[in-house]
């Protein structure tokens, strides 16, 4: 209350902004564990439906496996995207976040990082187990897990742009899927490609490098684009 007219500090450091958003979103995620469980369960169920649906032919399952695991990961990631900004937008927190002295792209980076830690990491950790249903083994499991570790952060980053652009729209969820799924296509191709390459005995390094490069580009561009979209949504 005192010294209300004192000169306040002007620009705040970006890293503290990342840390604030990361800490808050992780704490919120831990308070609503059920939501995280639902998303992970969705992944497990969708992946497990395929062996039941296409029969027990080992050759067919091994050929389908990489694609199925990756498509299911894409959908599970998409399912959790509306959570990224919509709740904060509805209760007025997003407005306060945008008006904070911390740079908005830094705060959004922290939110995206928290989103990846609570969605992408569990998916990647669970996937080798689920891949056993498709008869994948050894180097294929490594390529799958490595691909998901490199690819899921890019999914969260690209998804954040879509989530920010569809803020406040009716039927935003469906529009979000239409907007974002085409952008996920390259990640799907190279992610599933990495597993496919190691299945036929080739090195998966090329595909994984492409996923890593995509992650770097998205990590720089997506927070800036999401910040711009959030500011438009708040106007």
């Amino acid at each position, binding site marked *: *209350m*005192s*010294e*209300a*007219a*004192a000169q*306040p*500090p*002007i*620009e*705040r450091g970006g890293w503290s902004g990342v840390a*604030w958003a990361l800490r*808050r979103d992780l*704490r*919120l995620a831990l*308070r*609503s564990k059920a939501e995280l469980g639902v998303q992970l369960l969705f992944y497990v169920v969708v992946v497990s439906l395929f062996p039941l649906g296409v029969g027990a032919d080992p050759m067919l399952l091994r050929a389908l496996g990489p694609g199925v695991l990756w498509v299911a990961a894409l959908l599970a990631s998409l399912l959790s995207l509306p959570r990224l900004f919509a709740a904060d937008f*509805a*209760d*007025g*927190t997003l*407005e*306060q*976040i*945008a*008006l*904070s*002295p*911390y740079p*908005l792209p830094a705060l959004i980076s922290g939110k995206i990082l928290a989103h990846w830690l609570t969605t992408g990491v569990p998916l990647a950790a669970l996937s080798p187990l689920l891949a056993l249903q498709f008869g994948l083994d050894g180097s294929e499991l490594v390529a799958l897990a490595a691909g998901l570790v490199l690819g899921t952060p890019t999914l969260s980053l690209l998804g954040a742009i879509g989530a920010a652009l569809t803020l406040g729209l009716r039927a935003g969820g469906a529009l979000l899927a239409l907007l974002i799924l085409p952008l996920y296509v390259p990640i799907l191709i190279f992610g599933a490609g990495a597993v496919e390459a190691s299945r036929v005995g080739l090195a998966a390094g090329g595909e994984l490098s492409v996923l890593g490069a995509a992650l770097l580009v998205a990590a720089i561009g997506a927070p800036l684009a999401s910040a711009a979209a959030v*500011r438009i949504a*708040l*106007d």
Partner: protein
Amino acid sequence: MLEAHDLAARRGDAQLFSGVSLSLGPGTALFVRGPNGSGKTTLLRILAGTTQAAAGRVLWRGEQVGPFHPALRASAVFIGHAPALKDELTAEENLASLATLHGAPAERAAVLEALNAWSLSRQRALPARVLSQGQRRRVALARLWLLSRPLWLLDEPATALDDAGQVTLRDALAAHLAARGIAVIATHQDLPVASGAHQSLLLA
């Protein structure tokens, strides 16, 4: 010093107001009045820097500030209709979280003192989900206590507050003005201030 020259705003095709000018020195409060839909909230959002004015300009300490200008983000605290509380967090966590977001240190003692000042000591460990509207509003307003910002922008701050809460708000405002702060308050309830200069702006 907060100044605005010839501000105009529109929502969709409708012109809300035009030609609004104001000039507020240290220790001054401005009460913005007007019927529903006259643009009180929009004016506050323009001053807070979340909405682009259709015309005119806003100056903070002599510097022209547009939407999301860093100088404005470091000096102003804007409390809108939505109290910006997370249902999953307790009153104390909500307050500490919002204070650190705005760069205040938010030590535990200071947070508890702010909650105490707004008569929320007993609700400190309750999740915001179970608080009443008035209590949520109190948690939102307790932020003013922690942040020590020179510019307050309050949109209907007395909504859902009981008599005791309005007295606390009035005292907080008086102390803010006495410390040479500036406040812009959109209201259609009377919020008489004991000290400090105040102006009124009627949006038609």
